[in-house]
């Protein structure tokens, strides 16, 4: 900040307020956050109430088998697929899978990463060295390649896929938490707590963790976006969930990629479903990041 700006900001007297309420106020003021939250809510409603909202079941044939299935019409707004199933219904049911994959895989990566990061940051020394070198090693393998490798190793069950994608996010969360613990550990309030004899574990859970949590939330939101993209990518490569009936968007899209020329709707509708669900998480994550660290507002 220049002197002049510093002067100007000193002049404008602002109400003092807490970190969290401040962040919350900035999120609410950000239109991107509203759009992201709205989109996300829309997908959550689709997922939860799929049987109520979707006109047909995900496997239900309402038309006949066709080499060139009919495109969008008044009756079937997103058209039918080659087995005569309603595309709109399949996409609505697909929201369940994408959100599930996003949430579960990030939950796996987050919990493993946090545990490793906490151990690393709290104990330091040799433990820290070993864990962090291993994380570095994992990071030198591109995440999606790691996911491909793990799925090849573990098999193509839905849980295995979520686990594989979750694992790729472990190093990010571990590093993030370790970094913030190291920063907090030297902070005055932690030194103060330590000087009055607060036991180690309590120091970690009561004093350090709550103050390190904000960037983790941001990262988790953004990681969900990546998880949804990754599962779609795996499906596209033929490494998606092996249950043939699952209306997973990426798989749906991949199965129909060869029909692009005559039945583009079978590619575009599931594709845009992926784009918008990912966008929801990206918008929200971005808004949260700006809110928590105004310097990044940039």
């Amino acid at each position, binding site marked *: 900040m220049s002197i002049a700006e510093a002067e100007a900001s000193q002049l404008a007297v602002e109400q003092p307020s807490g970190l969290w309420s401040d962040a919350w106020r900035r999120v609410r003021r950000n239109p*991107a956050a509203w759009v992201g939250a709205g989109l996300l809510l829309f997908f959550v409603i689709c997922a939860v109430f799929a049987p109520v909202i979707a006109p047909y079941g995900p496997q239900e044939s309402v038309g006949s088998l066709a080499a060139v299935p009919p495109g969008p019409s008044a009756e079937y707004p997103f058209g039918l697929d080659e087995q005569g199933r309603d595309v709109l219904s399949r996409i609505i049911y697909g929201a369940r899978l994408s959100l599930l994959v996003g949430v579960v895989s990030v939950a796996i990566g987050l919990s493993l990463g946090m545990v490793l990061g906490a151990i690393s940051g709290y104990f330091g020394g040799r433990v820290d060295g070993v864990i962090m070198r291993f994380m*570095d*090693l994992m990071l030198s393998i591109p995440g999606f390649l790691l996911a491909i490798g793990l799925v090849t190793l573990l098999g193509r069950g839905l849980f295995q896929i979520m686990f594989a994608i979750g694992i790729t996010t472990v190093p990010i969360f571990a590093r993030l938490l370790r970094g913030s613990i190291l920063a907090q550990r030297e902070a005055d309030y932690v030194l103060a707590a330590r000087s009055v004899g607060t036991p180690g574990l309590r120091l970690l859970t009561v004093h350090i963790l709550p103050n390190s949590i904000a960037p983790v939330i941001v990262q988790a939101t953004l990681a969900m976006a990546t998880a949804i993209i990754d599962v779609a990518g795996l499906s*596209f490569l033929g490494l998606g969930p092996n249950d043939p009936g699952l209306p997973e968007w990426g798989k749906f899209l991949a199965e129909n990629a060869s029909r692009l020329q005559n039945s583009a709707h079978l590619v575009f509708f599931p594709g845009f479903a992926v784009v918008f669900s990912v966008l929801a998480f990206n918008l929200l994550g971005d808004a949260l990041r700006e809110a928590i660290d105004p310097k990044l507002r940039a």
Partner: protein
Amino acid sequence: MLRYVAKRLLLLVPVLIGLSILVFAYVRALPGGPAIALLGERATQESVEAINRELGLDQPIFVQYLRYAGNLIQGDFGSSVLSRRPVVEELLERFPATVELGFAAILFAVLAGIPLGFVAAKRYQGVLDNTSLVASLIGISFPVFFLALIMKYIFAVRLGWLPSIGRLDITRSLEHPTNFYLLDAIIAGDGAAFVDVVAHLLMPAIALGTIPLAIIARITRAATLDVLSEDYVRTARAKGLTTAVIDRRHILKNSLLPVVTVIGLQTGLLLTGAILTETVFAWPGVGTWMLNAINNRDYAVLQGGIVFFAFLVVVVNLLVDISYAFLNPRIRYQ
């Protein structure tokens, strides 16, 4: 500077050793062996053992690793169990396709992303700034294969402007001394072939480069905004320098520092994106090669592919660190 490079190189050794162990352990853990892949599920016990002996898979695990590591150092990745050709030979054919694609993509991303981010920052909160912010957020929300399919649909299927698959029209003959087709066309002095190669490269490169473009533009913008409010920019203005000199010498040179790091971080994303892009455009690169290997349980090829990708990531990051030090005297003189 030389000392810095040497130090960085030395730091690579443990990383490479760790990687080789990881890859080795991983490949051994894969379900179903190469013998099964070669002979089918109904192979007899004896024929499986014979194949395993032939491939050295009956040895203790650490002997296998040492042999493997020794071979790796000599550039011997083994042979594909399917084609029976040395993996290195196939890799040499394949990797120029992926590197050419990746390089074209990152070139596109850098050439478009840096100016875009810079101009957006200079017009902070203007129309262009807000538009590019929204556009870049939408851009990073696209799965790369979907973007590739959309482009293919528009420019190849509907408009017919660009070829939809491969690196070169199959009716065209071109010598391939380097397997970098752009270079090959230049060496052959064949202008028409060069144009054809570019036409084939255009769509995959743009599809693959779009997400890095969005990320680079965002980082450039954020970094430039930071630099714009720095005291030394005010000093430069107080000196009465022209806007062009201030932009280039005082602002851009500083705001590129974080951008260089981010470009390095994009390499992994770019390579995995290449696997998907290659699939869409039937691009005969390392990505499609590895996918085949996965489907055929071709250990040696999969191993070679993973090592190659990881090696590329490590090398690019080394180059990025060095160029970062080159741009930032505070690192260089440490």
